[in-house]
Every structure is written in structure tokens, then in C-alpha cells.
């Protein structure tokens, strides 16, 4: 689908886990992504900021296979072309996604939510006869502990508070044990204490050799993460660097932080 010209581009010099180059997505003539290029290194945590409509969610859709780019390259983990794969295949390659609105399986217990997310054989035939192994039970205990949900394990996920659902979803991401986590507005609707705890949790995940991409509006939270920041605007990168450099960039101030 992509033109031959792009195939001739030499592979990236730095060994990045995720490599986007010249990605363009249009919806009815509106360019949601415009020649977007981005690289995420293994184990790196990156914060993505930008005004509404800057293309943050579309970027995640492209990476996770929900949206096909019109042009451009999306490579993952030593050159796997993500534009040819569907959501399930990409998830099984090791890319996990947390949605903006917390999406958990409300009629399952907290424990079952984690169980279903645990990395493993996803084929219907194997799943039909699957029994919870001691290793799986141990992983579930560990993740519930990390996400602070151990006391809630037998409750239905639908009965959790908003903040608990956010944490459960992050717990599900941990269970998937992905190489790359895409996290969309993880602290929306959280209290300050919860926000702080979430930042700590994400830092811990990143330290455990997972790459994390966080999309967030909350500048205090982004500052608390203390990582490299990319500011998107109209579908491409406006500025990239440390939070202080980016937040002092006059263009960023103009389009995003405040006129």
C-alpha cells in the first residue's frame, strides 16, 4: 500500500522499539496526522502533550492497528511492520493500550479482569480448556498488590470507583507484560494523591524495562513523570525535549499552554 519510495528509506540508525516515519492519516480530507515522525527507545518513557485535535489518539490508533495510515512507516521491535497487522496481532506482539475512558470488563470480578489480560495463548481452542496455573495465580496476586486492588479482588469491576477502574486497567496492562504501553490520560478524574501514586506506578513500570508512552493534559502530572516530552500540533511534532525546554517554547505556549 505504501509507495516504493518509502521502502528505500534506510532503517533507523538508533535501535528504537517504535519507529514512526512520515505517517499521514486523513479523515474526509482532514489530516489527523500529518507526516508524523516519532521514535521511542527500549525502556524509554515518553509523555505526549498537545491541544485537542492534535492527533494524539489517532497516533495511538495507528500504532495499535485500529486505523490504517494513508502513507508512512510504523515499525516495531526490529522492523515488524505494524500497518499490515490487526489489533489482536499487534497486542500479541507486545503493545498494550489503556483507553482514555477506563474500559474494564464490568461484569467480571477484578481478579478475572487480570486473568483475562495475562500474557498467554489467546487461541480459542487453548482458552476453552485453560485452567488457572499456580504461576498465573502468583502473577495475579502480584499485580493486584502492585495496583493496590488486593482487597477488591472478588468484587465486580463495574462496582469500582473511577480511580480504581483506572488502576485496574493499568494492572491489566501489566498483566499483558507488553514491551510497549500506550497510556491515554491515565489521571483524568483522579485526586492529587491518586495522580501522584499513578506517576510513581508508571515510573516503576518503565524502570522494569517497559517502554511507556503517556498521553496527558495534566501538566503537573507530566512534570511529576520527569521524562522527555513531545508536543503534537495539527498532526505533527511541534517540539520535543525536556519538560522545561518544551514548556518555554514560544510556539508551544501559543498553541497549547495558553495564549
Amino acid at each position, binding site marked *: 500500500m505504501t509507495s516504493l519510495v518509502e521502502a528505500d528509506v534506510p532503517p533507523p540508525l538508533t535501535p528504537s522499539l517504535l519507529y514512526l516515519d512520515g505517517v499521514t492519516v486523513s479523515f474526509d480530507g482532514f489530516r489527523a496526522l500529518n507526516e508524523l515522525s516519532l521514535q521511542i527507545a527500549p525502556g524509554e518513557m515518553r509523555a505526549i502533550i498537545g491541544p485537542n485535535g492534535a492527533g494524539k489518539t489517532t497516533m495511538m490508533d495507528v500504532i495499535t492497528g485500529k486505523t490504517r495510515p494513508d502513507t508512512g512507516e510504523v515499525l516495531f521491535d526490529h522492523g515488524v511492520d505494524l500497518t499490515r497487522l*490487526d489489533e489482536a496481532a499487534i*497486542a500479541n506482539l507486545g503493545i498494550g493500550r489503556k483507553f482514555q475512558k477506563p*474500559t474494564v470488563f464490568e461484569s*467480571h470480578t477484578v481478579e478475572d479482569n487480570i*486473568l*483475562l489480560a495475562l500474557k498467554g495463548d489467546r487461541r*480459542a481452542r487453548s*482458552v476453552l480448556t485453560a485452567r488457572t496455573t499456580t504461576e498465573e495465580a502468583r502473577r495475579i496476586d502480584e499485580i493486584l498488590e502492585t495496583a493496590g486492588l488486593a482487597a477488591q479482588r472478588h468484587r465486580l469491576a463495574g462496582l469500582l*470507583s473511577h480511580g480504581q477502574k483506572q488502576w485496574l486497567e493499568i494492572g491489566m496492562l501489566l498483566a499483558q507484560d507488553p514491551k510497549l504501553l500506550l497510556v491515554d490520560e491515565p489521571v483524568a478524574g483522579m485526586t492529587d494523591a491518586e495522580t501522584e501514586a499513578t506517576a510513581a506506578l508508571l515510573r516503576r513500570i518503565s524502570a522494569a524495562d517497559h517502554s511507556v508512552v503517556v498521553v496527558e493534559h495534566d501538566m503537573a502530572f507530566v512534570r511529576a513523570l520527569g521524562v522527555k516530552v513531545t508536543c503534537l500540533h495539527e498532526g505533527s511534532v511541534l517540539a520535543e525535549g525536556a519538560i522545561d525546554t518544551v514548556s518555554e517554547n514560544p510556539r508551544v505556549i501559543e498553541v497549547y499552554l495558553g495564549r
Partner: protein
Amino acid sequence: MITRALLADDRTGRWFLAIVLGLAVIVPILHLAVPETSAFHISTATLALLGKYLCFALLALSLDLVWGYCGILSLGHGAFFALGGYAMGMYLMRQIGSRGVYANPILPDFMVFLNWKELPWYWYGFENAWFAFLMVMAVPGLLAFVFGWFAFRSRVTGVYLSIITQALTYALMLAFFRNDMGFGGNNGLTDFKDILGFPVQANATRAALFAASALALALGYLVARAIVASRLGKVLVSIRDAESRTRFLGYRVEHYKTFIFTVSAIMAGIAGALYVPQVGIINPSEFLPANSIEVVIWVAVGGRGTLAGAALGAVLVNFAKTTFTTGFLAPYWLFALGALFVVVTIWLPKGILGKFNDLWERWRPSPAEKSAPKPEPMPQLAE
């Protein structure tokens, strides 16, 4: 042993199986062994009626499996039921042999009447019971597999899927109405004589067919229960509640949907096959879209996503239908059905069994709930 493990935490299921298996024994005895003068005697007509209810219960169970647990609202499940019925009907037609009106040893009467000279190729093999019984499952199963594969792979969901399932059964109805399809057209298949060498009309055969229907319902329940209690069952519920989330966890939603749709269609086919010898006829009206919609009402009334409730709903609604369509109440059946649907939607959104379970939980909380922490918000997470 597997059964015991399955039913360990399924109180409703234990009751359900006890009742169904009890019926499988008691009803035939009351029909065959109790003299006709006794008040406990079950007449041939009642026996046939009860057998029909059990077949409908299995059909409702099969729909509940896809609708209640995977959110696939099929408005065409009657098609799978009818196809199973036709496969059985073809076997029964071939058993008539030269006892038909035209006394042709090979061709069924309607083919002789249409001046056909030889049996169409798709009727081959149906003289053998094993082949016919295999087809009872294979034909609906294969259709559901192919249909499901294309529909689910193209991500047709919700009301669009419901509409094309409706179109499927309607198209099949039109096809089966045509004489040159070779399935008896308008009149369908009837005048059956023998099944497995026993006369269809004999009391003992009828009693055996009733018992077979009850056993099929019990077995269908166990299969459905095993599926929904497995990890795959949990994935199905996840698909029902948050399909794209399930996809992003790496599950191939289309494979799961196709699997459960196929299993469900096979169950519906078996229900149809048991139905036909008990009512003595199968014709294209079984494909009527309205029939399939009625099945949805049974499930909604009994309790969607409860399995046993679906079966209960089928029996209750059909019992009401029998009561209302005979005697002086006859003109009011459609009003009663409409009222029933309104009542269930407003006061019993979880159906009869769902309501019953809610009341039971409130009256007597299970030990698991007693020990679990009360649903109070954690102090540090207060909004």
C-alpha cells in the same frame, strides 16, 4: 465427575437438571403405564405438546448462549432449527419407502407428483440414520460457521447483524417454498411412518422421543454450562461488554464469535430434529422471521444470560400461547404476548430467573458475599 465439578456452584443448574431428567422418566411412565381412566394419565396430545416445549427450550438455550453471553442478537435462529428439522424430515421421508401414496420405493411422494425421475444428489445418504443425524448437526453448523466467519470477520455487529440474520432466515424460507428446491415446497415433508424402525405414531415411540428431547435439553445445558464456565466463556462475556477492549488484549474476537455461533446453531439444529417427528411435519413456515423473533422473547422473559431461564421462558411462553390460542381466549393471544413483553421490559429487565436470583441473594446472601468486603468506597479514593 466433570458434571459434578460443573454443577458445584450452580444451584439453579442442579434444580434444572433434576427437573428435566425427572420429566424424562415420569412423563413417559404417566403416559404408558398409568391407565387412561386415571387422573394422572398423560394423553398423547399432551405428551406431544410437552415434547414440543422441550425442543423449544433447547432452541432458547442455544440462543441464550450467543445472545446472553456474547451479545450476538440473532434474529434468525429459527433457520438453524428448521434446517435440523429438514435433515430429520428427509430421513423420515426415506423411511416411508413404498408405503407412500404412489408406492415409489425410492422417491418421496412429492417428487413423484412433480414427475421427477430420480432422487436429487443432496438426498443421497439420508436413508441412513447415522448420516441423517450427522447432517442434523453438520448443516446448521456449517451454515453458521460460514455465515459467522464472513459476518464477524467484517465486524458486522449490533443491529446490522440482527438484520442480516433475519434476512438469512427469510431467504431460506423463500428458497424452501420453491418446489424445484426438492424439499416438498409449500407442503414440506410429512406423513412420516417410521423412525429407527419404530412407528412414529406409536405411544412407546412418542414416549421415547419425549425422553430423548429431555435428555438433549439436559445435555445441551451441560455443554452450554461447560462453555460459559470456562475461560473461553469469560472471554465471550468480555466481548459482549467491551468488544474492542478484548481485541486490544490480543483475542481474535471473530474466532470466538464464530465458535459460539456454530455451537449454538448445532444445538438449535438438534432441537429442530427432535421437534419434527413429534409434530409430524416440517414446512417452510418454520423459517418465518416472526418465529425467530419469538425465540428472543422467550429468552428475554425467562432471563437472558441465565441458560436455565431461557429454557424456562420458552416453556412458560409456549404454555401461555397454547392456553391463549385455544378456547375462548383465542382472540387475545397477540394482546397477551404484547402485554407480556411490556411487563418483562419494565418490571423484569433480567427476566423471571434473573429476578428470582436477585430476590434469593437479598433473602439469603451467599457465604462468598458475607466474607467479601462491603462495597464501601475506600477513604483515599473518595471522589
